[in-house]
C-alpha cells in the first residue's frame, strides 16, 4: 500500500516538474532559457558519455568526435543544402552512430588508457583533417561555416528538452535492464563475462553506437544553437572533457549523476565565467583533481556509500 502511494506521488511530482519545464519559454527570460539550453545540452553529453563509459568502464575520450561529426553533417545540410533542421539533426546522429560502429569494431579491442588515447588521436586527427585544404569543398576548411537554421529559441529549447528527457529515460531503462547489467559485467571483468556467454564485442559496440547517436543529436542541436561550426570548435577537447567532469562530479555509472553534474556544473560555470574568466580553466582543472583524489565516486556515489541513498542502480 505504502509503496504504491509513494509511486503515485513520484509520478505526479514528475508530471508537474515536466509541465514546469515545458512551460518555461512562456515566462522565463532569454537569459534563463539560454542557460537551461546549455544545461540540457550538457545533460545529453554527460548522460550519453556515461551510458557507454560509465557502464562499460571504457573511458571514451572522443566525445568531441561524436559531436563534431554529427555537428558538421547537420550544419552542412542546413547551411549548404537548406535542409529543415528537424531532418538535418537525425542525419548527423545517424551518421556518427554508423561510423562509430566501425570505429568501435576496430578500437574497442584496445583496452584502458590506450583506448582513451586512441579516441583522442581520432578526434585530433579528424580536427586537423577537417581544417586542411583536402576536405575544403565539403567542410569549408578551417574558416568554419556560419549559418542560420531559422529556428526560434523556444522551439530549440523544447527540442533539446525532449532529447535530454529521452536520453535520461533511455539511460534509466538500460541501466536497470539486463543489457545494462551485461555492460557493467564488462566493466567488472570482461574476460569472466565472456566465459559466462556474454558476447562482449557486440554489447560494447551497441552501447558505443547508441551513445554516439544520442551525443551526436545533442551535438547537432548544439551547433544549430551556436549558428556556427569550425573544426577547432566542434572537435574541441573541451567538449570531451566538460561532460566527463560533470559525470564524475555527479557520480559515474549512475542514472541521475550526469544530470545532477551537468546542472550544478553549468551554474558553477556561469558564476566562475562571470567572476573569474581568466582563471576559469584553472579552477576547472583543480576541481577535476580534487574529484579524482577525494571523491572518485561523485556526489551520488558518495551519498549511496553514506547510506543517504539506496545502493540501487536505478538512481
Amino acid at each position: 500500500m505504502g509503496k504504491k502511494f509513494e509511486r503515485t506521488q513520484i509520478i505526479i511530482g514528475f508530471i508537474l516538474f515536466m509541465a514546469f519545464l515545458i512551460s518555461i519559454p512562456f515566462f522565463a527570460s532569454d537569459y534563463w532559457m539560454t542557460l537551461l539550453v546549455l544545461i540540457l545540452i550538457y545533460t545529453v553529453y554527460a548522460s550519453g558519455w556515461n551510458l557507454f563509459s560509465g557502464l562499460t568502464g571504457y573511458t571514451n575520450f572522443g566525445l568531441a568526435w561524436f559531436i563534431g561529426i554529427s555537428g558538421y553533417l547537420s550544419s552542412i545540410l542546413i547551411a549548404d543544402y537548406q535542409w529543415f533542421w528537424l531532418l538535418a539533426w537525425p542525419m548527423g546522429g545517424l551518421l556518427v552512430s554508423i561510423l562509430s560502429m566501425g570505429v568501435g569494431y576496430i578500437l574497442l579491442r584496445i583496452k584502458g588508457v590506450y583506448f582513451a588515447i586512441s579516441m583522442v588521436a581520432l578526434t585530433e586527427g579528424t580536427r586537423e583533417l577537417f581544417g586542411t585544404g583536402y576536405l575544403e569543398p565539403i567542410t569549408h576548411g578551417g574558416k568554419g561555416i556560419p549559418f542560420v537554421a531559422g529556428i526560434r529559441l523556444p522551439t530549440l529549447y523544447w527540442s533539446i528538452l525532449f532529447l535530454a528527457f529521452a536520453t535520461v529515460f533511455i539511460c534509466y531503462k538500460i541501466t536497470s535492464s539486463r543489457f545494462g547489467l551485461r555492460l557493467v559485467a564488462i566493466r567488472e571483468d570482461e574476460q569472466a563475462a565472456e566465459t559466462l556467454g556474454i558476447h562482449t564485442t557486440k554489447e560494447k559496440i551497441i552501447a558505443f553506437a547508441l551513445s554516439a547517436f544520442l551525443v551526436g543529436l545533442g551535438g547537432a542541436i548544439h551547433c544549430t544553437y551556436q549558428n556556427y561550426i569550425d573544426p577547432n570548435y566542434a572537435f574541441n577537447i573541451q567538449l570531451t572533457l566538460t561532460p566527463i567532469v560533470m559525470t564524475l562530479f555527479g557520480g559515474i555509472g549512475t542514472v541521475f549523476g550526469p544530470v545532477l553534474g551537468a546542472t550544478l556544473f553549468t551554474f558553477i560555470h556561469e558564476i566562475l565565467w562571470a567572476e573569474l574568466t581568466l582563471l576559469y580553466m584553472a579552477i576547472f582543472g583543480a576541481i577535476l583533481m580534487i574529484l579524482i583524489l577525494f571523491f572518485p565516486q561523485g556526489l551520488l556515489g558518495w551519498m549511496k556509500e553514506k547510506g543517504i541513498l539506496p545502493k540501487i542502480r536505478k538512481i
Partner: protein
Amino acid sequence: MTVREPLLKIENIVKRFGEVVALDHCSFEIEKGSIAGLIGPNGAGKTTLFNVITGILQPEEGHIFFKGKEITGRRPHEIARMGIGRTYQIIRIFPKMTLLENLLVVGKERGEAVVEKALQLLERVKLYDKKDEYASDLSFGQQKLLSLAQVLMLDSELILLDEPAAGINPTLQNELMELIHRLNEEGKTFIIVEHDMKVIANHCQKAIALNYGQKIAEGSCSVILKDETLLEHYFGR
C-alpha cells in the same frame, strides 16, 4: 551398439608461451556424466588447459571437440553458450553487482523466468537471504558458491572447476562437494582441478595427471594415487 561419443575430446593440444611449452601434445576424453579430477603440480598446465578449452587462449596445435563438434578457435562466449561453464581459481564474480544481478546477467531466458531461475539457484547455494547485497561483501567461500551458481545459470553441461575447495572451510567444502554430486546426478559433467588429494580421491571417478604440460597418467583415482612417477612429481618422492 554405436560407440559412445565422449562429451569432451581433447586431441594433441599444444600451447606455447614464448619458449615455454605449457601444454605438450595433451589428449584425453571426458565421458558424459562423470566427475574427472585434473591433478599435477603448480605450473603443470592445468589452468592453461582450462583456458584453452574455454577459448580464452588459442592452442598452436590440436583440436577440441565438444559433443562431437569442434570448438577449437571459437570465441569464449560461443563456447560458453554451447554448454561449457567454468569457475576461476581466483574468484571472478562481478563485485559491484548484487548477487541477484550477478546471476541475471548470465541468464538467457526472457522476462520473469530468468528472475525465478536466479532466485531458485540462490536458494540452492544458500545465498537467497543475501540476494540484494553486493557480491564484494560476501566471504571467500560464499563467493565461490556464487561463482558456481553463475555457471549453473548458463545451463552448462560441462563444468570446469578450478580448485573449488581451496581456501574455504571444511563445512563449506563439504557442502560444495555435496552440491557437485547432486548436480552430477542430475546429469552434469565436471572436470575439477584440485591440489587436495582427499577431494580427488573422495569425489572423482577418474583422474588425469599433468606435468610439464604432458599427460603423465590417466585412470581411476585409486590407480592414479598409487602411481609412483606421479607421486614423485607431485610430492617429491
